[in-house]
Structures are given as structure tokens and as C-alpha cells.
């Protein structure tokens, strides 16, 4: 089932994923996770190779987050013994999959709401409000708007327009409320995880209620796994994931050297290299 992505321009990972999954309702029963993941990665590579339209950092990060989740899902599906449909429905679900699903649904909801706003705007455009205002002599009675403006306000406005624009990436406003960085999550996981006792993924994310934070904490665990700092065990199919510290590496908590920063604040060229890191 070859999936070629005939692109409209995908603005973000959800656009792309929604498109891949919903592209043809006829194929509903044939939709396969594998094909979706492959299609997603192919499009991601295309986007990254497209030098004319470079992804900004935040968007690239988001694409990669979703890619990581998809790859993880696919990896699980390829493990033997997983095609037991009953288990899929009845046993514990995978948090990251449900998170992704929830985010896709949310995204779709607002896409449709945007369509409704557009319809309202089009309807409103059919009417033009009266704007002529009062005729003379009333017009001259109206206080001139400029009279309420102090010259200093003009100066302030000029400074605002002429001064250096803040660089969006440095603006921490848009990072703070989400409070999720992989680096912090790694620290948190290491703090929570006892040296000798294994701990379930569920306990590691207990009390985390923001979706993105959950995803990020999951990614942090994948990072630790990749670096050989923890081991991941699943006792039952679809059972909870158990995270265990690897003793040999415990001392190597000098993690700082590792460029985790790339998740959070690396400059844009990260894209291709990191995609490979995640998939390796």
C-alpha cells in the first residue's frame, strides 16, 4: 500500500497526521499504522529538505515529538504477539497514543470551528456598517482624537516600532505556561526513580495532567533509555511500562554534557540530524 503524500502545504504535524489518517474514508479499514508512520516520516524529511521554507524551531520540535511517538507506537506493534485485538481494547492503553489521539481530536475540533468563524465572517461581509458619521456642524464638535494624545505617547509608540524586535525564540512567554522541557523531565525522572527499585511509568507520571508534559516525560524516559541509563521492561503485553535504573551507569549522572538542549532550544539546523537520532 504505497502512500505517496500529495501535498497541500502542511502547516504542522497535526495537519499532516490528520491528512494521512483521514485522507480517504474508503480506506478506513485498511489504514495501517505502519503506512501512516512511513508517510509521516517521508513528509517530515521532505519538509526538512525544503530549504525555501525552513521550519521554525518550535514547529520542527513538535514534528519530531510526534515522529518519536509514532515511531515508538510502530516499534511496539512490531513486537511479536501484539495483534491480539481483544487485548487492544481491554487491556491498558498506551498513554502516548491516547495523548496523540486527544491532540488530534482537539486540533480537528478547532479546524472545524475555524471554518465556522470563516462562514460568520463571510456572512457579516454581506453587510456594510454606516461609517459616515455626523454631518456638520456636529462633526466639528467631536473632540479630535489627537487632542487626547500626549507627545510622549507618540514617542513611546515610535520607540516601540523602531526599536529592536524581540527574537521570538528567546521569548520565554510561550514556554513557561507549558512547563515542559525534556531536560527538566530527565532531571525529574532521575529524581523520582529510586537507585535500586524499578518504578512503573504510571507512577512516574502520577500527578502530571498536562498532555504535553506527559509526552515530554515519556520522551525523557526514551532519552534515558537511549543513553543506557535506564532499562525498560514490560511484563505483560500492554502492561504498564516499568523503568529501572541501570546500576552500571548510575555514576554517570554527569548528563550535562549531552546535548539535550537540542530538544528545547537548539538553533534550527537541528532538524535532519535529530530525526535520525530519534529513529536510531
Amino acid at each position, binding site marked *: 500500500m504505497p502512500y505517496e503524500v500529495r501535498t497541500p502545504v502542511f*502547516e*504542522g*504535524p*497535526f*495537519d499532516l497526521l490528520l491528512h*494521512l*489518517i*483521514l485522507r480517504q*474514508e474508503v480506506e*478506513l479499514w*485498511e489504514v*495501517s*499504522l*505502519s503506512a501512516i508512520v512511513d508517510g509521516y516520516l517521508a513528509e517530515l524529511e521532505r519538509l526538512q529538505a525544503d530549504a525555501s521554507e525552513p521550519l*521554525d524551531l*518550535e*514547529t520542527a520540535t*513538535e514534528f519530531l515529538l510526534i515522529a518519536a511517538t509514532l515511531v515508538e*507506537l510502530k516499534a511496539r*506493534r512490531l513486537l511479536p504477539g*501484539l*495483534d491480539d*485485538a481483544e487485548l*487492544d481494547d481491554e487491556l491498558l492503553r498506551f498513554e502516548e497514543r491516547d495523548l496523540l*489521539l486527544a491532540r488530534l*481530536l482537539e*486540533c*480537528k*475540533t*478547532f*479546524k472545524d*470551528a*475555524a471554518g*465556522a*468563524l*470563516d462562514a*460568520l*465572517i463571510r*456572512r*457579516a*461581509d454581506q*453587510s*456594510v*456598517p*454606516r461609517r459616515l*458619521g455626523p*454631518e*456638520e*456642524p*456636529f*462633526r466639528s464638535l467631536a473632540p479630535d482624537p489627537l487632542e487626547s494624545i500626549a507627545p510622549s505617547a507618540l514617542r513611546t509608540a515610535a520607540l516601540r516600532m523602531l526599536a529592536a524586535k524581540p527574537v521570538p525564540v528567546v*521569548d520565554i*512567554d*510561550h*514556554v*513557561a*505556561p*507549558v512547563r515542559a522541557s525534556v531536560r527538566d523531565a530527565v532531571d525529574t525522572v532521575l529524581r523520582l526513580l529510586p537507585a535500586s527499585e524499578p518504578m512503573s511509568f504510571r507512577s512516574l507520571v502520577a500527578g502530571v495532567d498536562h498532555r*504535553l508534559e506527559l509526552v515530554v516525560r515519556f520522551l525523557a524516559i526514551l532519552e534515558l533509555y537511549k543513553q543506557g541509563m535506564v532499562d525498560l521492561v514490560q511484563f505483560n503485553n*500492554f502492561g504498564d511500562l516499568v523503568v529501572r535504573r541501570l546500576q552500571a551507569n548510575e555514576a554517570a549522572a554527569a548528563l550535562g554534557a549531552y546535548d539535550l538542549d537540542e530538544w528545547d532550544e537548539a538553533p534550527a539546523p537541528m532538524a535532519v540530524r535529530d530525526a535520525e537520532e530519534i529513529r536510531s
Partner: protein
Amino acid sequence: MSDAPETPDPEVRDPETRHPETRHPETRHPETRRAIEAVLTAATEPVEPRLLAELLELPVTTIEAVCDELAAAYDDERRGFMLARVAGGYRFQTHPDLAPYVERYVLEGQHSRLSVPALETLAIVAYKQPISRGQVSAIRGVNVEATMTTLLQRGYVEEIGRDPGPGQAVLYGTTTSFLERLGLHSLHDLPPLGDFVPDASVVEALERGLRVSDTPAAATPESLAE
């Protein structure tokens, strides 16, 4: 400019020669009706009922009742204009039926279209306000910096506060211009968000697409080969 002060039209002076007003449904408040018509004719933005009440020294409820009657009467008389309640106030606007003529007159579309990303961002702000840029980005899965800047400059969204939590992110909401642009009286007139929650078939398609254990049929040799 171009506005030569003119003398009052001689033909319409002379309030003495008043006709009896038996023909209008809103005759209960003939002077109120006239005053409202005059003020709305002079207005360049929606006039709040409270302001009309102050100007006319009448209760707001009376103003609203007369405005409702007026709107119905214009509709009934099939006027080319209508009295609309928009963004918290009343205003005269052209009747949508006559858009073909009006469009030809108002040569430049006063509004340029909003792009799809801008509409989606606007929808999120409208339904989730107060909301920070970061939260909008999280929902859309893309950086919304540029889009938000456009919406701010167009005056559809504005800062309405700060997140009390750490980081003190700026929180945004929609403006009166937003309501005017959509022709809505208030945010309560937005269609409920629940109307847009994807229906079962979409949810099922998404769920199936991300199902960890595929139905056996879908596990093709190709997909296993990797």
C-alpha cells in the same frame, strides 16, 4: 475633507407641520424612535443601549424594546438598511440582500481575507480565552508567533492579562473588532464548541490509524519488512 458645511435643508424644517403617526408599529415611543434613528445615523461604531439610555434619559429596557421594534419594522418595510445588534451595541448596516450593489460601490474590499492558519489561531483564542501564545502553539502543534502578531495588528486579539503562574505568560483574548468582524453581539453568540467535536466516524478513523495492534489484515508483509 470635502465637507462643506451646509445649511439645514429648508424643506424639512418646520416641526409644526407634523403628521399624525398612526402608521408605524413603534408609535408608542415616536420621539424615542426618532432620537435613536438620529443618533445611530451620526454614529461610526455600534452604540451601546446604556449610552442611548443616558442620552435619551430613559431606562435601558425601553431603549432595547424600541430598538427591537425598529429593527422589526425596517425588516417588515423591506428597507435597504437594517438595525443590527453587533459587538454590544446597535448600528445601521446595509441589508445583505443588497450586497451586489454595495460591493460595487465600496470598491476596495475593506477587509482582506484571513488565512487558514490565522482563522484556526483565532478560533482557539476565541474559544479558550484567556490563553497564552504557548498554549495556542501547543494546540496547533506549530509556532504561532507570526500568526498571533498578525491577529494583534489587525486588532482581532489583544492582551487581556498575565498568567499568575511562573513565567507570567501574556494571556490573549478577542476584541470588540473581532465581534464586529463576525457580526456577533457577544461571545455568547459564537456557535458552541461542542458542535465541532469530530463525530464518531472521524474518531474511529483516528483511533484505528493509531491502533497499536493492527487488525491482522493490515499487517502486510511490507509493513513488517522494515
